[in-house]
């Protein structure tokens, strides 16, 4: 794809452990509410959310609802994503009065999450919105702070953090690359 020298920051095991910890934290913060809705941001966030839901089911014995959200049309910088097709969003039974955890792979400027929160409003008034990310790479441009973080990875702007998820990429890894 680009002429970058990749460096693995998180291995498959690291990712598994981070997700297990986040799952426990989500349960702790939400007192194992069975109304809990995990909303994955397309594309990789959806797979992270599904795995968190599977973990929660294993730990607590109930399976939280997993929704999907494509906040593309709510972005303030559509140029970033205009080359990609928009994907259907689906949150079964909506979010009215329920605690919601937005799940994404990488947190960077915060603009996707701002757009996701606005897009989420169309699905009802959540009792609370929290944010879980696998990697927080810094460089926030908006006052957004994640509630659950897999790993803080300080980066330079010219670097790229690529999250590889088995369901899409064939294997699990978090890799550091460079802009060409």
């Amino acid at each position, binding site marked *: *794809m*680009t002429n970058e020298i990749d460096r693995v920051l998180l291995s498959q095991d690291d990712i598994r452990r981070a997700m297990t910890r986040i799952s426990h934290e989500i349960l702790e913060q939400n007192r194992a509410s069975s109304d809990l809705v995990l909303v994955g*941001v397309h*594309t990789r*966030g959806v797979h992270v959310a599904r795995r968190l839901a599977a973990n929660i089911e294993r730990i607590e014995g109930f399976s939280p609802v997993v929704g999907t959200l*494509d906040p*593309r*049309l*709510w972005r303030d*910088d*559509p*140029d*970033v*994503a*205009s*080359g*990609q*097709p*928009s*994907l*259907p*969003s*689906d949150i079964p039974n909506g979010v009215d009065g329920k605690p919601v955890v937005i799940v*994404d*792979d*990488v*947190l*960077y*400027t*915060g*603009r*996707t*999450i701002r757009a996701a929160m*606005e897009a989420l409003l*169309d699905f009802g008034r959540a009792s609370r919105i929290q944010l879980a990310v696998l990697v927080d790479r810094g*460089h926030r441009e908006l006052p957004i702070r994640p509630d659950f973080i897999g790993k803080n990875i300080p980066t330079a*702007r*010219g670097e*790229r*953090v*690529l*999250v590889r998820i088995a369901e899409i990429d064939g294997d699990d890894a978090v890799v550091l690359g460079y*802009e060409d």
Partner: protein
Amino acid sequence: MTNPMTTHGSGAGIELAHEIAAEEVETMLVPRQHLLDLDDLSVADITDLLDSAEGMLEIASRDNHKTPALRGKTIITMFFENSTRTRVSFEQAGKILGADVINVTASASSVSKGESLLNTVKTLQAMSIDALVVRHPHSGAPYFITNHTDASVVNAGDGTHAHPTQSLLDLFTVRNHVGDLVGKKVAIVGDVLYSRVARSDIIAFQKMGAEVVVSCPNTLLPDEWQWDSTLGSETGFAGLRLAANVDEAVDSADVVMALRIQQERQDSGHLPSLREYSDRWGINSKRMELANDGALLMHPGPMNEGVEIASDVAHGFQSVVEEQVRNGVAVRMAVLYTLCAPGKSARIGGGDASNGEETKS
């Protein structure tokens, strides 16, 4: 992955793509601004638009379907021919995306006072618009307009030339039912000579790998085409099969599309009578039985029930006519969004959006 609208020269519509490539090499680098025809879009471009329409369909079907995507943009629909579904569908698509949509019709504008197309476009251009959706009785009118405006021009049907968004919604509708179009048989029945829908659909379905068979009265075929033959590349429709009769066309088809027969055709002597047309070329339940199980019946509308399509099948279990209309909004949202959303810019740290890896956040 390529952006469907950025890989080609601007406004290639009427001329062949390779001529453009030879003559206007520089414009190949300019982002595409217009959608005039499907003949210069690649399979990947079309697939991207259809994929995008999936997400748009979900948004359009929400209780609250307003988005801020094109907030602050102005879209003008300029219809020089009557239309219900196409005009309303573009208007609805623009409004769901948050744009301001203004409708101009020939009868209610200065066009009825004799203003020329050129002056009308210049007038609208002076009011800072972002997109012009044009329907015009003359083939090539949207292409002409691209030379006189900075706005994106979307062809909403021009003469007998093209109706690209209709074909995109037809592809989208079929894809949602049968998946991959490769090897599927599509029968198009009716006024092939005058129909811009037929022309665009033949191009679209062939491009996506389907086998297209047409059937129509000989008087409505272009002169050099003959029944019961397969066209060569010199016609521009290589591989298009002209069936000997409707039954042959419909036989084991996965998609049957009836085209509207226009009253004017009968008046001009192309048809002996509507009743004879209905007998020989009308789609009815008996003919639909020849098609494959699960075959779809389509019609671009408006339908003349009892002429080209029998009422029972038009509203029967195989009919996807209303679905076509619903999908029309989604497909037009995808087109307007792709054309009007701010162009891609080199945003530092933005990542490479096209491979979807790490742009978010």
